[in-house]
């Protein structure tokens, strides 16, 4: 109990609080003096409390697409990373494609996906999945290859087979990397999902933001922005909890 109030703990709590406080004051100053730029916080909160159902139902659409995209993109990245560890040909073939994918503004593919798949959830899931794919691929690859040579020697000296080396060494050893990847991926999927909703849909947090722009409803816009940011934080938090439960070393 007593060490809750150590100097470093207070600092860790206080420092960000001060920054947030200053940001809040700055925000309110702008909101009061330049009304067209930022709405005051009170108005944003009021807007949210006025119709939480509207926001949560839209948020759920976005989160759903993000989670499905994260699952598909993340899992395919892991599977591909595993194959790439074992097949040099695949590694050589896929890395350039993955790099190309990484530099392509994935959101810009959105219109093409809408043309191809229509006005439904699929284009948004694909954008989220593509966004989630790359960070997971890179982390999974590093994790699966980050095996200490000396440990590998111990396994090889007793003729452990590939499957054993994979399940007893590579996979558990890569878990910390997979979780770092997952935290990046899930954020990327969330951003992908939101931004892809700027087009071709009337549902989701992204669509809510666009709608707010058309009606110059600053309050609605900022509620949507804050909600998506908070949601990303919560998703990262959930991944961290699973990580803590699974990695105890």
């Amino acid at each position, binding site marked *: 109990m007593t060490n809750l109030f150590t100097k470093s703990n207070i600092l860790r709590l206080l420092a960000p609080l001060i920054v947030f406080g200053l940001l809040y004051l700055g925000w309110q100053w702008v909101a009061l003096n330049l009304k067209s730029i930022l709405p005051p916080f009170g108005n944003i909160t009021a807007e949210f409390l006025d119709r939480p159902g509207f926001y949560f139902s839209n948020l759920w659409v976005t989160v759903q697409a993000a989670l499905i995209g994260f699952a598909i993109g993340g899992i395919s990245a892991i599977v591909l990373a595993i194959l790439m560890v074992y097949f040099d040909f695949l590694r050589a073939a896929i890395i350039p494609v993955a790099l190309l994918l990484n530099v392509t503004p994935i959101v810009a593919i959105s219109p093409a996906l809408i043309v191809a798949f229509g006005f439904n959830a699929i284009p948004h899931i694909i954008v989220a999945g593509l966004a989630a794919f790359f960070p997971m691929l890179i982390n999974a690859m590093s994790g699966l290859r980050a095996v200490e040579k*000396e440990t590998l*020697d111990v396994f090889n000296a007793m003729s452990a087979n590939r499957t054993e080396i994979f399940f007893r060494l590579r996979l558990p050893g890569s878990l910390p990397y997979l979780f770092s990847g997952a935290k990046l991926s899930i954020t990327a999927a969330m951003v992908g999902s939101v931004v892809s909703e700027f087009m071709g849909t009337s549902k989701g947090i992204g669509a809510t933001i666009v709608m707010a722009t058309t009606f110059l409803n600053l309050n609605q816009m900022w509620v949507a922005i804050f909600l998506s940011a908070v949601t990303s934080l919560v998703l990262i938090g959930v991944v961290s909890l699973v990580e803590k439960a699974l*990695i105890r070393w």
Partner: protein
Amino acid sequence: MQSSRIVLHKLSKTYKRGDSEVRALVDVNATFEEGEFITLFGPSGCGKTTLLRIIAGLESQSEGDISLFGNSPAQASRLKNIAWVPQSSALLPWLSIRNNVLLSEFVNKRADRIVGSTRKAEDPDEVLADLGLADFKAALPAQLSGGMRQRAAIARGFVQGAPLMLMDEPFSALDELTRDSIRLRLLDVWEKHRKTVVFVTHSAFEAVMLSDRVVVMTPRPGRIHSIVDINLPRPRTREVLESREFEEKVREVKHILREGWGQDE
């Protein structure tokens, strides 16, 4: 007769890097008896690790033959008859010490069904107790000191129950005091199980203290200069280690190295 021995016959190893070649080992001949404690002693780059890796089947020789009690290194490895103790402890951080030590029982299960397989795993609890780790069976490697982790790595080697243990400078990362006590522990456990050990070291003191015979190697190209008998009594008690004979042996081994190497260190 040969099948109770380790025979190295005209071994050589050349590493090719582009145009340049490194002759890591040239014409290595030696015979080690079953149950002997052998050390490979020599300066950096004389091919100790290379030789040990070739014996383990982790590396292949360029020329020559090896017989490990009648088997090739690959065959012996397939039977789990080679225990490898590396320089770092190389424990798996997510497994308890007890499970780490039991690694040989989790992998290559086919070896235990091969006809003629004589390897029998030792009791992990007993080996851990002998190495002073009885209270740390459930601990994770990160909770142990460097010296304890190294003892766990040695325990893993003994638990495998392989007739041959290969150790590449397993104590080099430890401080002098820790090294001192861990050497004695190693000898205790070894006296009990009497595996054939090939142990690599830079230290003449360590070589003499542990071995029945010291293989003195010299670099450029790596070769065996001579093999020195260490006919000091066992067990190697503090008394033995503080005797004149012991000091003389250490001096002799150092002298032989200097003479063969033609260099003042």
